[in-house]
């Protein structure tokens, strides 16, 4: 297996974790924090931390190795990663401090940014 294969594998683990955090926070929003709230907040925050780190580190490594970091779709994905990262951090903080009722708006931003990154990663416009 090449280095590209391993980098892609680790990048994809990060993507699974990141989307897992969106799914977890969305479940909290739909089901409320009364049922399994502490467990879901813990899961969502850990998935977000792991997913955010792995996607960024191995994504940049892949871009430097196999693409061009100045490609429009990569720059767009990086900008969206920071948008999603900022709103995801806010969502995690709100749920952790018991203010989950205020998490709807940042969660919508986090979800849309993550979905947009996924679209850019697969469709690679301009590549």
């Amino acid at each position, binding site marked *: 297996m090449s280095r590209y294969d391993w980098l892609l594998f680790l990048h994809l683990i990060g993507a699974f974790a990141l989307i897992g955090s969106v799914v977890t926070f969305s479940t909290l929003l739909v089901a409320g924090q009364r049922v399994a709230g502490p467990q*879901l907040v813990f*899961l969502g925050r850990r998935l977000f931390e792991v997913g955010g780190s792995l996607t960024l580190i191995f994504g940049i490594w892949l871009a430097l190795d196999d693409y061009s970091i100045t490609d429009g779709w990569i720059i767009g994905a990086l900008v969206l990663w920071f948008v999603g990262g900022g709103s995801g951090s806010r969502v995690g903080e709100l749920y952790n401090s018991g203010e989950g009722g205020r998490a709807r708006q940042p969660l919508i931003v986090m979800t849309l940014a993550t979905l947009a990154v996924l679209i850019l990663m697969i*469709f690679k416009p301009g590549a």
Partner: protein
Amino acid sequence: MSYAAVRPDSWNFPLFLHVLGATTLVGLLAVAVAVLIAAARAGDDRTAAVRLAFRTLLIGAIPAYLVMRIGAEWIADKEHLTDSDASWIGIGYSVADGGLLILIILNVLAGLAYRRARRGGQPVALLRWTTGLTLLLILAYGVALWAMATKPA
């Protein structure tokens, strides 16, 4: 040397569906594990948690599985890989088809646990079996992800 390849445009949407379904499915399985653990530790008042775990598997995981599986078949057809002998394709089909069986078993177990909890019973053993099988399924999808990403010969 670059190993990256840009695929034909017509492959992108099926691949998007496949990845979106797979990532959502694994996320929902992780949610189910967290809720099942909470339900097993909840003592007498576990009905709401068991119901949430059951609904996560039934209303969430099964539709996500279908999106993943339809996307997989579509992209395999586009790439003319449906009859391929490549081991990574074999791993993918094995995990996907075996995973459906486990997903159905998980729904039955969680449904039984919910019914028992609703009647005032203590379905701890059922919850533990469901948790263990869900973790096994997540692990299997991890193997499938490795096969999809690294494409061993």
